[in-house]
């Protein structure tokens, strides 16, 4: 097998929950050696969140944590004790890259911030990603993912006309942050290779999230307009939305041109509607959108979403099943592209992780190891990576971390 791009690159991982761990997962999937520092006293939120294998609660028994953390080493260090802190500092000197998503200031208190680490490891690359960045009056406020979703404006752009905004699912910013964080780390690594220079990168998850709403923000700064709850309608397509199908399921359909509209009518055997002047042009379909959606819904509800998708795709119309988690696990496309990896976890045995969403022709990402048990590699990391031995090693391993 070919060498992975990041083989030999050493990453010290001070992250938790999702945004930070996703960044280090990506680095690990492309070959980096990632040591995640964890704590028995304060385990990651995902370590204590379900689902748990056989419903037995425990940090090494959560398939949620395991899904997001393959390929990493876990070192359990109690940073409140001298030996734990000394070991963390040694790891900081060992590392090429440090990633942290703790509340700003926390690592500085421990002497593990960029300025401190740089004294002994001058070309270190450090990416710090917190909710609102490392500076500014709100920097020190602890944030959780869903709160950032509200603060960024995602909720404003989600909902139905005349009703309250609704919450899009999940901590959206957490999934956006790696889009900027990983490219920045890789650019920094390349820069270091060329110049020998390290750097510190400050990535605010709020600022990252706003990039994904930029057209809506510009509509306000330019046109003084704020359009929030528009349901599934689109300014460029009609019909556009999800339509009811048999068995209380749904199919998404998006029609961008008059030709596509004709194709849809023909494919669903409603040729009479294709020539109906109410709907034959895009402005007409937009003007009569409620009626249009109702009509299309009456056509789709008699079929399965799979039938609608396949029939419309064959006719050149964009359509897709609204898949639930079971459908996703059985999705033939995701299977064909090996999206999910079966990993053999030391405690849970069979365990699923997701692979990287891109395939590189020469150096595709690989999931080589399952997600670690909490502290599984403390001794390995101390002896193999840091050459610790004797009394210090005994002290570290006997410490209740």
């Amino acid at each position, binding site marked *: 097998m070919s060498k992975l791009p990041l083989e030999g690159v050493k990453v010290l991982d001070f992250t938790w929950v999702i945004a930070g761990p996703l960044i280090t997962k*990506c680095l690990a999937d*492309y070959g980096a050696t990632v040591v995640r520092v964890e704590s028995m006293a304060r385990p990651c939120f995902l370590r204590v969140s*379900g*689902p*748990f294998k056989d419903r037995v609660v425990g940090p090494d028994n959560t398939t949620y944590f395991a899904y*997001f953390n393959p390929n990493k080493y876990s070192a359990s260090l109690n940073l409140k004790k001298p030996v734990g802190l000394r070991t963390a500092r040694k790891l900081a000197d060992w590392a090429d890259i440090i990633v942290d998503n703790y509340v700003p200031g926390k690592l500085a208190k421990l002497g593990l911030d*960029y300025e401190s680490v740089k004294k002994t490891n001058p070309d270190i690359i450090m990416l710090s990603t917190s909710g609102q960045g490392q*500076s*500014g009056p709100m920097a020190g406020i*602890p944030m*959780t993912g*869903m709160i950032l979703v*509200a603060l*960024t404006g995602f*909720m404003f752009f989600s*909902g139905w006309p005349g009703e309250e905004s*609704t919450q899009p699912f999940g901590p959206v910013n957490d999934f956006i942050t790696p889009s*900027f964080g990983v*490219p920045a780390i*890789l*650019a*920094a690594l*390349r820069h270091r290779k*060329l110049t020998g*220079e390290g750097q*510190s*990168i400050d*990535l605010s998850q709020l*600022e990252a999230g*706003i990039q994904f709403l930029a*057209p809506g*923000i*510009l*509509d*306000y*700064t330019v046109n003084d307009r704020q359009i929030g709850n*528009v349901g*599934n309608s689109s300014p*460029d397509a009609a019909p*556009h*939305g*999800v339509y*009811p199908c048999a068995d209380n399921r*749904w199919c998404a359909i*998006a029609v961008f041109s008059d030709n596509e509209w004709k194709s849809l009518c023909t494919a669903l055997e409603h040729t009479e509607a294709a020539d109906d002047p109410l709907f034959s042009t895009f402005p007409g379909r937009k003007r009569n959108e409620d009626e249009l959606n109702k009509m299309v819904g009456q056509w789709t509800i008699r079929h399965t979403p799979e039938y609608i998708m396949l029939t419309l*795709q064959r006719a050149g119309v*964009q*359509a*897709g*099943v609204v*898949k*639930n*988690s079971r*459908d996703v*696990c059985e999705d033939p*496309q995701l299977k064909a592209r090996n999206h999910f990896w079966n990993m053999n976890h030391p405690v849970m045995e069979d365990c699923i992780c997701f692979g*990287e*969403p891109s395939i*590189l022709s020469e*150096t595709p990402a690989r999931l080589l190891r399952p997600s670690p048990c909490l502290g599984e590699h403390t001794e390995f990391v101390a002896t193999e990576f840091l050459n610790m031995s004797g009394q210090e090693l005994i002290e570290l391993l006997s410490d209740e971390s």
Partner: protein
Amino acid sequence: MNSLLDGIRVLDLTDDRGFLCGRILAEMGADVIKVEKPGGDPARNIGSFYHDENDPEKNLNWFAYNLNKRGITLDIASNDGWTIFLKLIKKSDIVIESFPAGYIQQLGLDYVVLKAMNPRIIMTSITPFGQTGPYRDFAASDIVVQAMSGYLHLCGDPGHPPVRISIPQAYLHACGEAAIATMMALYHRESSGEGQYVDVSAQQSIVRNTVNAVPLWLTYGEILERSGAFRVGLGKNLRARQTWACKDGFVNFLFVGGILASVAGSSGLTDWLEEEGISTDYKNRLKDFDISKFTQEEWEQMEAPVVKLFMKYTKQELFDEGNKRRVSICPVHSPEEVVNYPQLEARGFWTEIRHEELGAAIKYPGSCIRSTAMPAGQLRRAPLIGEHNVDVYHGELGLSEDEIARLKQLKII
């Protein structure tokens, strides 16, 4: 100080499904040349416009995601265009494209062809489902990709159909993944000397946004459903309120206990409720709770006093007081509130970019990548149609003015 990607040239053939990838590289200093069809990219016609003037030079989506790029026009489907494009390939490092799978091959611009011209070239393709597999040729806009990834199923209220975020998101995630994978290939090239082909699937880019829905299905056989203002999937069948009404709008707040209580915590809330005289017996369970052990009824009893508390105050009052007490209560922001949020102002996030052609300056979200090794650099506005044709075709490829005029007349550029 130079930018991180100085000297890296990117040819950006994408439409709106791929703009952001090049913008991320451009923000870090790469010379990204947006290659449009003569007359302009069709994606200049979708979404909103500057002052609602329906003009491809005034498209807000184009403005937002093509900052810092240069722009040329070129019909790569023509013979002359093909030849010129291959000349550009010799002087470039990266090509990004978002045509339907197979189209670039039909044009005779497969990766093999590009690599023969330049063994160091990296080519990144962004498609709905990737270059392989049974759905390879399916067409899919944002809402279709969101549906097929399992994400849309989870968005919205139980009483309505699933609802997307109305600013298209799926391809932005794909662009982020494309930027990651492209940078990975670029870094690899530093040691191997060779380029490679990068195949990005938008569907795969957002499957993980379903958080723990896949583990829940595989572990418990439970299918997570959309739950609107409520958080589900934390405790068994538990619906935990996340969006709460207050005096002048809505705030976001989630009870978290145990190890997270001190971080995003609910412990400060207990004292607050007590001071306001609206505490209940459930306060003790708030201090040290295990979400997996609550029944819905108990949960709602715990929520009841909080509903009362929040209705007494405005969004801003709750945010300020919460911050003092280390309780994470956050306003649900509108775009106006985002733009006026003091934290972003304090960090100098917003940037005014002058558009001479419009006789105006526009306020943009600035860069979110802030590095000590990179100047905080001024962002440049997105290119006009063919704005850099002369710079590139004459200045870099050495085409004569006559030749450029001829190509223009033939609508090749």
